[in-house]
């Protein structure tokens, strides 16, 4: 439910397919291919599918949502097919460190090599009242150090760009004025019409015959708009992929909750931070979940925090039970090697309309089924919650503690929301 990155390959294909609607002169070569370890294993077929690989000079670079690829020596320039194969063999499946995240390189984007002199920068961003065009004659890797040379042009929301006087804002385009203006305007229209949230071409080149060639391109789409674009990127049978960053893998437990989330009108979010963590949270509400996470980190237990997540919007008893079971399984699978206690914080503010009794019935059912596991892993449960049917809901929690012998401490609205965290951790 937010802005999502897309692959450079997808972004280029997509922009190239849309841009001629507004800028018919855009004449893109359309030569794009992605090589993966699987495709490398069938290299001949890969080449047969992309015959231009044999004739063109080639560029190759990783397509996994990270930048500074040149500095990491991950770009191949002006190469022939043989050199490309060698480069792919060398780089694919190689482990990389991007910042402090480790990941494996498994996608290289291949395009024709375009000799050029000048590298231009442009991007489009948005704020509350404007969409903004950013343009610079000094693009490429030096754009950041030359940021003061970037021209920023706010376009008030809803402006018809066709009649917008862009020329005055971008003087000095010189001989390229007649291609650059319609190109920028066309791109802007694609950006708006297709619900982009960010689009950056850094750099693009202009060939001798005045053809514009995007070299590196980054884009984010507003995924909530997918339903408006079932004829393009939001096609439910063939949606554009929203990849996660390199080195980030969705765990099966996260996938389970994601699937559940997509099936319901309620909200169920779950992300594992540290499988060996001793503190796990099951918090109701997007706002409250942030506050609980803050509190655990403030108290110095950030590295012990098992997960981030939240459930809200009155999920059904069944869904809440699956969600709870998922966390209980994770916290109780491996007891702490040093035998220390683990803590499950079942927290939340005072709900507006989520039924505390119904959701807690689901959680209680999961606790009851897993009582042995929880005791075995030395898990203590701390509950704090309010909202519709809060008394009955909290009573259920007390009961299941008594019945099963799982240590459960239950607090109501009169205990400050996050105080259960310090109560839990100070008893260490």
């Amino acid at each position: 439910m937010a802005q999502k990155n897309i692959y450079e390959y997808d972004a280029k294909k997509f922009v190239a397919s849309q841009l001629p609607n507004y800028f018919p002169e855009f004449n893109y070569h359309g030569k794009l291919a992605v090589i993966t370890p699987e495709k490398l294993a069938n290299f001949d077929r890969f080449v047969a599918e992309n015959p231009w690989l044999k004739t063109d000079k080639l560029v190759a670079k990783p397509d996994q949502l990270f930048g500074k690829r040149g500095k990491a020596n991950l770009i191949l320039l002006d190469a022939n097919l043989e050199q490309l194969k060698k480069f792919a063999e060398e780089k694919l499946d190689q482990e990389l460190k991007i910042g402090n995240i480790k990941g494996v390189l498994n996608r290289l984007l291949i395009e024709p090599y375009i000799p050029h002199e000048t590298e231009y920068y442009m991007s489009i961003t948005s704020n509350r009242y404007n969409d903004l065009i950013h343009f610079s004659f000094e693009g490429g890797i030096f754009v950041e150090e030359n940021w003061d040379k970037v021209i920023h042009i706010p376009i008030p929301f809803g402006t018809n760009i066709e009649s917008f006087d862009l020329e005055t804002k971008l003087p000095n385009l010189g001989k390229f004025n007649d291609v650059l203006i319609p190109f920028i305007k066309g791109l802007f229209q694609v950006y708006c019409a297709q619900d982009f949230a960010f689009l950056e071409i850094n750099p693009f080149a202009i060939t001798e015959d005045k053809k514009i060639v995007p070299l590196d391109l980054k884009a984010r789409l507003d995924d909530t708009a997918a339903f408006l674009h079932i004829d393009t990127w939001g096609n439910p049978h063939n949606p554009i992929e929203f990849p996660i960053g390199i080195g980030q893998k969705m765990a099966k437990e996260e996938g389970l909750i994601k699937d559940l989330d997509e099936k319901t009108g309620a909200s169920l979010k779950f992300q594992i931070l540290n499988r060996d963590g001793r503190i796990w949270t099951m918090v109701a509400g997007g706002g409250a979940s942030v506050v609980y996470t803050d509190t655990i980190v403030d108290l110095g237990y950030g590295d012990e925090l098992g997960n981030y997540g939240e459930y809200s919007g009155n999920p059904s008893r069944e869904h809440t039970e699956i969600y709870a079971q998922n966390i209980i399984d994770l916290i109780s699978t491996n007891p702490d090697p040093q035998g220390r206690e683990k803590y499950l914080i079942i927290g939340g503010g005072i709900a507006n309309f989520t039924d505390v009794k119904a959701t807690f019935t689901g959680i209680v059912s999961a606790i009851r089924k897993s009582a042995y596991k929880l005791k075995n892993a030395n898990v203590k449960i701390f509950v704090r919650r309010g909202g519709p049917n809060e008394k009955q809901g909290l009573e259920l929690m007390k009961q299941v503690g008594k019945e099963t012998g799982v240590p459960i401490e239950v607090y109501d609205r009169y205990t400050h929301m996050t105080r259960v965290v310090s109560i839990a951790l100070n008893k260490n």
Partner: protein
Amino acid sequence: MESYKLFDKNTQAIIYGFQTRPVQRMLDFDFVCKRKKPSVAAIIRPTQTAAIGYHKVFWGNKEIVIPIYKTLALATKKHPKADMMINFSSFRSSYPTSKEALESDTIRTVVIIAEGIPERLSRDLIRIARERGKFIIGPATVGGIVAGNFKIGNTAGTLENIILSKLYRPGSVGFVSKSGGMSNEMNFMISQCTNGIYEGIAIGGDRYPGSRLIDHLLRYEANPEIKMLVVLGEIGGTDEYAIVEAMKNGSIKKPLVIWVTGTAAKILPQGLQFGHAGAMAGSEKETADAKNQALREAGAIVPDSYEDLDKKIKETFEKLKKEGKIVPIDEFEPPKVPMDYSEAQRLGLVRRPTSVIVTISDDRGDVPTFAGVGLDKIIKENKSIGYVIGLLWFKRELPEFAQQFIEIVIKLTADHGPAVSGAHNAIITARAGKDLMSSLASGILTIGPRFGGAISNAAKYFREALQKRMTPLEFINYMKNTVQINIPGIGHRIKSVQNPDVRVQLLKEFVFKNFSKHPHLDYALNVEKITTSKRNNLILNVDGCIGICFLDLLENLDFTSEEIEDVIYSEALNGLFVLGRSIGMMGHVFDQKRQRAGLFREPWDQILFID
């Protein structure tokens, strides 16, 4: 109403979407606040057919109605004073419906509940609101509340919470947050450490909320009844800097307690999406720490963590009190709202006698059951129609032979040509252009003593004969002299001893082979011996045979004589005939309809006219 207020004690809203629970919650709130008129003027339900309908709601313990309109245009025309719309429509239709409201002349404030509205559409709504001087709360929010005055939809949840958080009368604190869930938590917290909330708004967790924290704070600043401000901000975006700016340039002077959540993000993996769509720091400036620091420097009261937020609020309030800036509140006991019947029932506080007893089926569980047998079992084990009839008519799992017998009867009775009264009536009705149900009913309505009645009549008299232990001859004489009718089930127009009815033969064979006892059939055959000696067409006919064999069927099942009496009394035999013959009558109706056969008119030469 002053321009810094969005709603007060007289505000009435139009609810977009047929949301019965929030509507009732709003009215219950109105009642405990002693509002003079309901806060809901009308409901819009675009899926209804009628232009205007009515929805019943409780006002205390009275029932009142709220009109439901098909369109917003009609609602605004009928309720020109209702100046806000609470939009419950889904993320798909939220944009066009909110736009329509913003472009109307009468709606001033639109609350958008839906989550997942495309950012560009939200921004367009913001543009329209700006151009037309309108106000938006949301998207992705529960709404807000002006204590004692007006409550949006589900805000503040149950009445119990409203009482506990003292939201039925205004306090002195203006509160605003992104999170709807946290706003309710904060309502309660603030009620515990101050004299309570005056107004609390949740602007929603999207990147582009229709109104921002600052927009509400400026309203609170202008409102003399609000003495202090409390804000819960969030990581992501730069809206909190507008507060910093307003404090610096003096447009906010009232004491402001604020905490920006999301301080944990610095140690969490980059790119982790917190609960709200807007909750991700795109730059250092958007982090919670940076915002808290900037606010602190601008003079806001910022605690060290959320843990201490309540202490800071209390301190600030106590200081204002000492300065004599807080006017004491006229406390009152809010009126009690009666408990809903369903709630009382759930809690076991009331009981009510039922009006119907049902013993054959139950559809309350996951799978409907017939006499305790799940429909899934019936399908999976490929049970017969005879088996299903056994469950629903006799509440028993019938043995195989009984199921087969019932199916034979259904087949035998399924049709008897177009000329008999049932089929004929069905044909005439169908040809008069009537629907299937009417045509079938007109056919069925002919079933009775003369048509189809021979089956149950035969059963009736032969059963009586056996019960009274009459000899066959005594029975024949009894029917002739006392009852004075021909023996039902005896006699055929064409068939005779020499030319037997194959249907009767098959039925008899089945009974002899499968029924361990068949006293009624034996008896009837003895009667037939006597009648056929008088005339060779006075044979046991198919109707008689069905009725009599059905009596034998009951003898072969686990029925007591009282239960057999109940089966006969409840007209199960007529049931078999109606069921079987309906197949044929529907066939005739379909046949006529397929042909598009025109209206049937009896020719004059078929009628004898007498002057």
